């Protein structure tokens, strides 16, 4: 049982480090995180539209200038709003979005914990 709990905790910790160690094509990752504004639910990576092509050029330029991913996102959100980013930025507006699933997960675990404890106590009686 302890092994299982260890795994669960390890996974929480990994969630935090998920961004850093992936050796992916960074450009593609950014394209996939940007929303095509003139399409119905497609990312810049998937879209064939003119707008998507232009954004790709701008992102490439910024990468070549040495800008980081976050700086690129900041630039685009200042021009187009948070709507253009698929991964919601962790600010006071979106805090609940990220926190709620985990909070509920912990509640669920707690309920199961209580159930097992109640059984143990009634056995002891």
């Amino acid at each position, binding site marked *: 049982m302890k092994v299982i709990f260890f795994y669960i905790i390890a996974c929480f910790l990994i969630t935090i480090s998920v961004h850093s160690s992936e050796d992916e094509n960074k450009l593609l990752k950014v394209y996939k995180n940007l929303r095509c*504004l*003139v399409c119905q639910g497609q990312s810049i990576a998937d879209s064939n539209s*003119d*707008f998507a092509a*232009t954004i790709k050029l*701008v992102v490439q330029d910024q990468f070549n200038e040495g800008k980081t991913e976050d700086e690129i996102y900041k630039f*685009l959100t200042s*021009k187009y*709003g948070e*709507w253009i980013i698929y991964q919601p930025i962790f600010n006071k507006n979106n805090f609940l979005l990220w926190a709620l699933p985990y909070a509920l997960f912990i509640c669920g675990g707690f309920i199961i914990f209580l159930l097992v404890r109640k059984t143990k106590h009634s056995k002891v009686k």
Partner: protein
Amino acid sequence: MKINISKIIIFSFVVFLLFIFWQGLKKNNSYDTKSLIGSRISNFQLNEINNNNQYISEEDLKKNKFTLINFFASWCAPCRVEHKYLLNLSSENNEIKIIGINFKDKKNNAINFLKELGNPYTFVGKDVKGKISISFGIYGIPESILVDSNLTVIKKVVGPIDQAQYNEILKLIQ
């Protein structure tokens, strides 16, 4: 039926959820860049369409009381439709100056377009690859941004300017 705290919470939550759904139906979920209004444009330099050595930047625009920055192209049909409003604005009004940015177009086609329909622009810049439009928060053409002498955005028009938009612009520049 026992009145239980948890039951009240669940009921209230369901009512809240359904209320949000109902309100959500009324909302328009198509995208616009209204959020740009109030922000300042800065850090740009536009090269003249005919002459790479000539350019315009923030300082030049601050000299105007109001500037309308209009993105257009010779291959864009709605641009032709809005053109007359641009001509009206430029000729009848000294409060406002119009800058044109030629978007993803060929120089000669743009010049012919302006020869044919008239030139309302005090300066015509070029944006061959379209990258400059991104700095202005543009995502289609025609689009126009109205700024004041501090370069704060006071209006954004997505699509061609029609009579209603034209009247609004006139009101704003009084």
